[in-house]
């Protein structure tokens, strides 16, 4: 069993990314179960979505200490799920901060990205970060495809199960999001090879 957790902020494409990974798992001949928590979280709240990949999957829930790969589309959201990470987990995250408005009313501080990385290092050394948001903005003029970039980044850093090949992932992107934006999405996926 390989458990993936996608975190981010409502509206960033967390669920779509999870769907792409789950669909890719099925295309590779594995089974998958995915569950998301949205609704209220959709409006800019914290969002988490898990995918279990393997055979004979029973419970859809990923328990504490069971996440093998965390892909976080936002730095702070990676910190929120430390308890879910396995000791051997890999963490991939985007460094572009989306500052929650609570910092102004609660008078809390959004930690520096280096701090976040340090905290994560207490659990695992397998950490990869990138500024995908800026790169996607540069490439497409908006940040809607950050999820695709992060998928590419996770792939090129070899953090995904080996059955999920480039070909399968691209096919899954096409199947999940549709033919219409495929050219752009493929470009973004491949751009992530450069980090």
């Amino acid at each position: 069993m390989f458990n993936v957790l996608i975190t981010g902020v409502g509206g960033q494409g967390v669920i779509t990314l999870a769907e792409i990974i789950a669909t890719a798992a099925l295309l590779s001949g594995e089974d998958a179960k995915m569950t998301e928590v949205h609704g209220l979280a959709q409006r800019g709240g914290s969002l988490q979505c898990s995918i279990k990949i393997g055979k004979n999957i029973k419970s859809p829930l990923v328990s504490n200490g069971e996440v093998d790969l965390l892909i976080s589309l936002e730095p702070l959201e990676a910190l929120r799920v430390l308890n879910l990470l396995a000791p051997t987990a890999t963490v991939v995250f985007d460094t572009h901060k989306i500052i929650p408005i609570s910092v102004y009313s609660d008078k809390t501080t959004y930690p520096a990205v280096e701090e976040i990385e340090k905290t994560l290092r207490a659990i695992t050394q397998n950490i990869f970060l990138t500024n995908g948001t800026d790169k996607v903005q540069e490439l497409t003029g908006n940040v809607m495809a950050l999820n695709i970039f992060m998928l590419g980044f996770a792939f090129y850093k070899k953090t995904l199960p080996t059955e999920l090949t480039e070909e399968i992932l691209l096919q899954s992107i096409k199947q999940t999001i549709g033919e219409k934006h495929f050219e752009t999405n493929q470009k973004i996926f491949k751009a992530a090879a450069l980090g």
Partner: protein
Amino acid sequence: MNKEKILKPKGKSFLMGDEAIVRGALEAGVGFVSTYPGTPATEIGDTFSALAKDAGIYFEYSANEKIAMEAIIGASLCSIRGLVAFKHFGLNVACDSLLPAAYIEARAGLVIVVSDDPSGWSSIQSEQDSRHFATMANIPIIEPADQQEAKDLIKYAFEISEKFKTPVLFRITTRVAHVSAPVELKPFPKPTLKGDFQKDIKKFNAFKPRITEMHNQLLQKIETLRKEFVDSKANFIVNNKKNSTGIICSGVSFLHVMEILEKNKLTIPVLKLGTIYPLPTKLIIDFLKNKERVLIVEELDPFVENQVAIIAQTNKLQIEIFGKNIIPQSGELTPAIIENAMTAAFNIKMVARNVTLSPSKGDIPRRFPVFCPGCPHRATFYSIKQIVPDAIFGGDIGCYMMGIFPPYFTQDFQYAMGAGLGISHGINKILQLNKSDKKNIAFVGDATFFHAGIPALINAIHNKANLLLVIMDNSITAMTGLQPNPGTDKTGMGEPTSKTSIEELVKACGANSLEISDAYNLKQTQAAIKTQLEKPGVNVLLVRRKCALLMLKESRQQGIKRPTFQVDQKECEHCGTCYTKFSCPAIKHENGITEIDQTMCVGCGVCAQICSAIKINKK
């Protein structure tokens, strides 16, 4: 939405529980579907909405759940198979029409899908367990554990409904509705909408003395169902062998239990129930016999447990029953919780779980849901706070409920859809009797106004309240994902229809006065609030501006590029109004600099009305 994966003739599809239900209903030959949006059941309606035309069935978003319920009763009286879906609170609303529907025999399958939401992932009103409605209404409940069962058992629910001429409650929870898994599909028939109403005045009324007679028939039906369910394919035993312990479970709990057993190589017999009311007594007795200890695993209330306890007692079975004495009755269950209960009940050791770091919650800034950039509700609340920061704010259910969070605090209470006005009225009567001059303001969204706000408005007017009703009309049902409502010009099947005019309704209800403003126009809205607060009686302010998500979606479809705004650093005086009082998530303040995140700004321009240092980005 990818319709293909649901409509394809056969094979396997990766489906969410809600989507699996849609497919199952099509396989069962459903003809008529109605719904009212509410998560975790929203995707059932949205999926039907997307494919109803292709599938050749009728679909509607009704004005509320009671009407949705009534619509499928009507269809079933015309011998068309009907399905209605809503979230748990929806069943509360529909309940009044559900009870008589059990008395009066259904002419075609009538299935009610209700989704509970343990832990309230998408619900703020209560953590209710809707299964209790079935005992009150005397109708059977079928409950699936996973997505394959969700699809298969919907068909079974229609079979039971038609065989016993009864509505069937199909109960799911978040972890069935919102889990996706591969589902094996079966072909589905061409649906038929050929039906007619045949009069039968005696049959379709429960008028005295028929009422007790019909009630008795209903009670007998439940006893027959109890026997029918003994051999139901929805119930089965895993690890069927002689053993001193056993587990009884239903819903997603079954999957958690199986995961624990397999991980720990345990072979405790498990009775998995898919028909949870009425319980198949004989099956339960057979399972309990020769066992010493049984653990009942179910989310929320001890619904199965209480029935099992009664069966054990009336049949004098000496058995120790564990359930809610060691499993929480609130919140969603997890494998870890169940594992602990199994350890306690059966005294067994389990494989140790990974030890993990717990995030120190206090250190991580909270990220509660917020109004989207460009949301008209933020602008309206900002205006309200400028004029009457201390009024009593009657809250309601919709995106505006995020007004409970800082810095707005414009939802002093929240109960149920439409309740904000009704409760404000009650408060206002007390204030009147005490000669208090506090101001009452109630908020309601357009969908919620149509759903349950109109009677509350009529009541407040008739009973002489003094209050201001602010209708926050973003011209869509936003919170649940942009569904149409009676105020929009398209039906759930995408057909053009007439818009119901909120202003005409307000006038017809007899409100003392009505003002209309644009939420994005702060001056206009603030002036209107002032005017309306000075008048006696029930006055209404209709603040109108399209939901920002909808606006963005339409801009994208039409290829319109939205402008963005930015802070002129030379002019910024660092007063903090924009990020502490207006609080758009696109405006960020870090290291002494206030900036607008150009990737988030949607160009509503409201912040530029608050501060002259904010200007349109000419690039």
